[in-house]
């Protein structure tokens, strides 16, 4: 069964069509990649999927229900979480608070019970704290618990952002260039992390990436985007030898 489907997804900004007739089909449990040259429209697709933009035409179906027109927070509550190309952590807050905020929409006590400090508040806070600490432990971030997020090393900030996205308990995880700015060793660790997270949390993952070792190494299905259109899709081996893909990246007449 397809977890996520887009049908002829299109968005135009004024006269510019940034994404045109894109059809994505993500099976449950799949790890898919979205690649393409700069400005091809990859992040725009993420922004469409997460409700930041509203498509000009076409449909996005998640678990067989259309999510077009929902606000970003509503889409998160349907269990789609994402990370950002340029890390967007709550910089001035502690690592623990970053995670606790992501658990917010699972909290089930009211504003009134937090003001009156009723039992529901104490129970809810305990639960949030327990889960957050467990998640930090899984991600090996416990030692940074009370550190400000902006003081973490770059690689750890990336990991924290992924951990925070998982705190929202998604079924579909969207990773926007998770390996950007990482050295080869960090990238390898990240690949292990993504594979492991996928198993552990039973996730479907769609990622945007420029690092071909990572994309070819872990993705099962790849979509190649150029000028807002899917020019190729398939298994990594097929994509590697696809004429149009090579042309898009290297230009016409380029060497193999």
């Amino acid at each position, binding site marked *: 069964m397809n977890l996520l489907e887009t049908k002829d997804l299109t968005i135009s900004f004024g006269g510019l069509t940034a994404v045109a007739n894109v059809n994505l089909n993500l099976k449950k449990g799949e790890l898919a990649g979205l690649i393409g040259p700069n400005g091809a429209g990859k992040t725009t697709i993420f922004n469409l999927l*997460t409700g*930041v933009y509203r498509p000009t035409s076409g449909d996005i179906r998640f678990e067989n229900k259309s999510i077009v027109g929902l*606000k*970003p*927070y509503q889409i*998160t*509550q349907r269990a789609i*979480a*994402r990370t*950002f190309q340029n890390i*967007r*952590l*709550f*910089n*001035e*807050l502690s690592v623990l*608070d970053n995670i*606790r*905020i*992501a*658990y*917010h*929409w699972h*909290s089930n*006590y009211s*504003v009134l019970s*937090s*003001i*009156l*400090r*009723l*039992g*529901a*508040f*104490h*129970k*809810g*806070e305990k639960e*949030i704290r327990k889960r957050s600490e467990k998640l930090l432990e899984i991600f090996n971030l416990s030692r940074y618990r009370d550190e400000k997020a902006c003081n973490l090393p770059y690689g750890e900030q990336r990991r924290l952002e992924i951990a*925070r996205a998982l*705190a*929202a308990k998604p079924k579909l995880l969207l990773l926007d260039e998770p390996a950007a700015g990482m050295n080869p060793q960090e990238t390898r660790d990240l690949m292990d992390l993504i594979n492991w997270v996928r198993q552990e949390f039973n996730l479907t993952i769609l990622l945007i990436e420029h690092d071909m070792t990572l994309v070819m190494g872990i993705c099962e299905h790849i979509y190649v985007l150029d000028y807002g259109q899917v020019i190729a899709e398939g298994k990594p081996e097929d994509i590697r030898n696809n004429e149009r893909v090579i042309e898009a990246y290297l230009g016409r007449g380029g060497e193999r």
Partner: protein
Amino acid sequence: MKKMRISKKNLIALAGALAIYFLVSGLLSLGMISKFQEINLMLLGINIILAVSLNLIVGVTGQLALGHAGFMAIGAYVSAIFTMYLDKPFLLAIILGALAAALAGIIIGLPTLRLKGDYLAIATLGFGEIIRGITINIDYIGGAAGMIGIPRQTNWPYLFVMVVFTIVVIVNFLNSTHGRACVAIRENEIAAETMGINTTYYKVLAFAMGAFFAGIGGALYAHYFYLIQPTTFTFLRSFDILVMVVLGGLGSMTGSIIAAAGITIVNAALQDLAVLRMVIYAVLLIVVMVFRPQGLMGTKEFTLNRWVKKRGEVSESAGN
């Protein structure tokens, strides 16, 4: 599920609050507080309420709003109508004034909170002036002359209870998942929304709560000074409150309390110096901002945890 949990630090906070209450009550009944000091004591309490409530909007949620005097005016006028014209009890008048201000907060908040930064500041500044314009033009509430002869019902017990009520409600709100949602909006609105936080809801909620307590401040003000006029609530008053919030540290409730108390006391102490007062006041502000640009407390809170040595629990403000 209604379990009362009284921890050691809550007991200390309670004991501290009661000590302050009875100390001041004692001094008042012994006549050791002069009329001038009493006026400033009232102003001090009202300023704490206003600064803490504005801090919820500006410091915690990160929405630069300059209409606090407008909410204060609504609380003042509405409560005065109920006590002066309709002979209703003071407490009821305070609540109705505060609710009217909160309602205005929601009505104003829904359309304007999609604006950011300086645009929101200008829109809320405009709101404050609109409220002033409206009050000038309604004869029922005295027009430009204002309302004169409001019963003086604000006294130390009322003031104290309202100050504690404001601080407890806002601090408890802050130290919950709902408060963290507001802080997340300040830190990064896009990330907050992506993490499943209904940003519009929390912005309007913070706005309404801030307005509610500003309304209480206005009601207390009106029932202490007999007289309210449209010119009592100009944008200069909004700025005064904002100065307290910034001086104390954006996001720090204890900072707001300290700054509100400090500014009120400095203002009172310099009363005799006439023109020179404004100069010294301004220089003081500049000096603090140069040496502590993040405000007196930064974003930190002064908590009893440090004294009771109990790590890990949600922090509780020390009260006033």
